């Protein structure tokens, strides 16, 4: 077990390094010079040169990359070009806001998905099965940014129950004052995991229910509930993997929903960074979100192998 965790841990290191390299080079795909974002176009040459030296842009790319990684390891992601503040402090609150949103959304998605998926799988071709098929179809088909607009119209414009954008300005706490801003974005974001998890759980449960061991359990006269416990135990590792990764996808993909609701999270910040051509901020956000995703992947794999020892046999997929 320890060996497996160690192997998996070591395997994440090259992945994390490659991710950082791609994140770093992404910016050099850009046609615009990052300096043009801060210096006026008619700035004298020596000012542009001194700005380049100040941001380290006058050095060759590989050197820039290694310096960037070395500083990132020490928690220094550079200084935002637009605001002049350290990237890490810009990231702090917005990261917390996005994590909150992603956790609530995946909690809704995973619980609703497990419920609908298992009911749909257990009672095939019934009304509840149709509902679960419908929910999973809507979940994967609806453009969630559009659903966000629909919910805004319904709950903010017509009913006036919930605020349509922003977050509470008072210091963070878990009360209704803060939560009410989160309800609509979290609900919007949760349709994706709800759809995917309903579909996954339903297909596992309906496959499992015709397996011999379930027939044997039924033959022994066990109650429906006990049989379901056996099925659930077998379905758990897959649900865990799909659900765990969804949290990461939601965090990385929250930009659309955060833009709709002006939710001050990483997606919103990313949007600002892109349009202001704030390269250090852009790199910082993408790197942090990807590293969280890599760690989440690692965590899910280890947890999965704890539940199901068969998973431990190989680090490689083949």
């Amino acid at each position, binding site marked *: 077990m320890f060996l497996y965790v160690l192997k998996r841990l070591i395997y994440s290191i090259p992945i994390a390094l490659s*991710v950082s390299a791609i994140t770093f080079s*992404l910016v050099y795909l850009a046609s615009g010079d990052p300096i043009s974002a801060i210096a006026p176009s008619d700035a004298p040459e020596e000012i542009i040169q001194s700005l380049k030296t100040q941001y380290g842009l006058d050095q060759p790319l590989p050197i820039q990359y290694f310096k960037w990684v070395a500083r990132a390891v020490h928690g220094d992601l550079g200084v935002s070009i637009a605001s002049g503040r350290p990237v890490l402090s810009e990231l702090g609150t917005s990261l917390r806001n996005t994590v909150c949103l992603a956790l609530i959304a995946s909690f809704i998605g995973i619980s609703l998905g497990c419920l609908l998926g298992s009911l749909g799988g257990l009672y095939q071709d019934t009304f509840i099965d149709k509902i679960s098929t419908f929910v999973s179809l809507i979940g994967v*088909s609806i453009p969630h*940014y*559009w659903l966000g607009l629909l919910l805004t119209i319904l709950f903010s414009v017509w009913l006036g129950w919930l605020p349509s954008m922003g977050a509470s300005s008072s210091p963070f706490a878990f009360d209704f004052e803060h939560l009410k801003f989160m309800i609509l974005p979290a609900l919007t974001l949760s349709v994706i995991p709800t759809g995917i998890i309903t579909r996954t759980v339903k297909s596992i449960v309906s496959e499992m229910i015709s397996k011999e061991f379930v027939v044997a359990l039924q033959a022994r006269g066990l109650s429906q509930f006990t049989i379901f416990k056996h099925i659930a135990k077998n379905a758990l590792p897959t649900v865990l993997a799909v659900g765990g990764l969804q949290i990461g*996808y939601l965090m990385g993909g929250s930009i659309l929903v955060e833009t709709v609701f002006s939710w001050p999270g990483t997606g919103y910040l990313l949007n600002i960074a892109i349009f202001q051509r704030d390269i250090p901020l852009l790199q910082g956000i993408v790197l942090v979100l990807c590293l969280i995703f890599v760690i989440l992947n690692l965590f899910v794999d280890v947890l999965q192998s704890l539940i199901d020892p068969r998973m431990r046999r190989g680090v490689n997929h083949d």
Partner: protein
Amino acid sequence: MIEHPSYWTHVFTKLSKNKIAWLSGGLLTVILLSAFFAPLILSTDPYRGAMLNRLNPVLTSGHLLGTDELGRDMLTRLIYGGRISILLGMAPVILAFIIGSCIGLIAGFMGGKINMLIMRTMDVFYAFPSVLLAVSISGALGPGIVNSLLALTIVFIPQIVRVCESSTTQVRQLDFVSAAKMSGASTFSIIRVHVFPNIIGPVFVYTTSLFSVSMILGSGLSFLGLGIKPPEPEWGLMLNTLRPALYTHPGLAVLPGLFIFITSISFNLLSDCFNTAMDIKK
């Protein structure tokens, strides 16, 4: 020799008995054809607006679905808008299918170090959540349709490579492939005759399930201002430019999203029908 109906004939016979396949396929055909032949069926200009006719509600005389924030006819723009939105849904997936299945076939068939090299490279792209990858690529490249198409293609290639590689690896270990190898068949003809027909099913179904994802994501990029530039009609961009009207004209402002939703649900329904007809276990 008895002529057996081919596998694909079998699949299409099964599909033709499915009502949902007819419904979603029919809907898609109507949307596709009307977008494609828009200049023939419409005499109105999607770019021409009238400032006096701004934000007319749905069912105004002369404008069936109203007018947008610049007084342009909504129905015309929605029909024309399908061109780019559907292109954003289909082109990256088809491109990724061609490139990804080639890479996946090579990785799966060669095995060993080549497989390791290709698949570990794909793992790196897997370490990016897909929306984040698309947003950061098109954010770095800047707005424009070519950049959006490129960003989406890069997002889908690793996913198709994975599906293709795992099916190829399974097929490669089967006896008939070894038999073909022993009989001296060339690598290319083994792949063409023995491997490819056996893996195309699962890869195809997986690919069809990506159309809706690609369209939602592509329109999403335009919605963020990272895709198509105004005044081009595109559903995601229209949703964005109509956002200020959300409070005053909600019925009008949500229309472009409805078109994305209907198209994407049709893509998904048709993909599910293919899945059932081809009897592929996910």
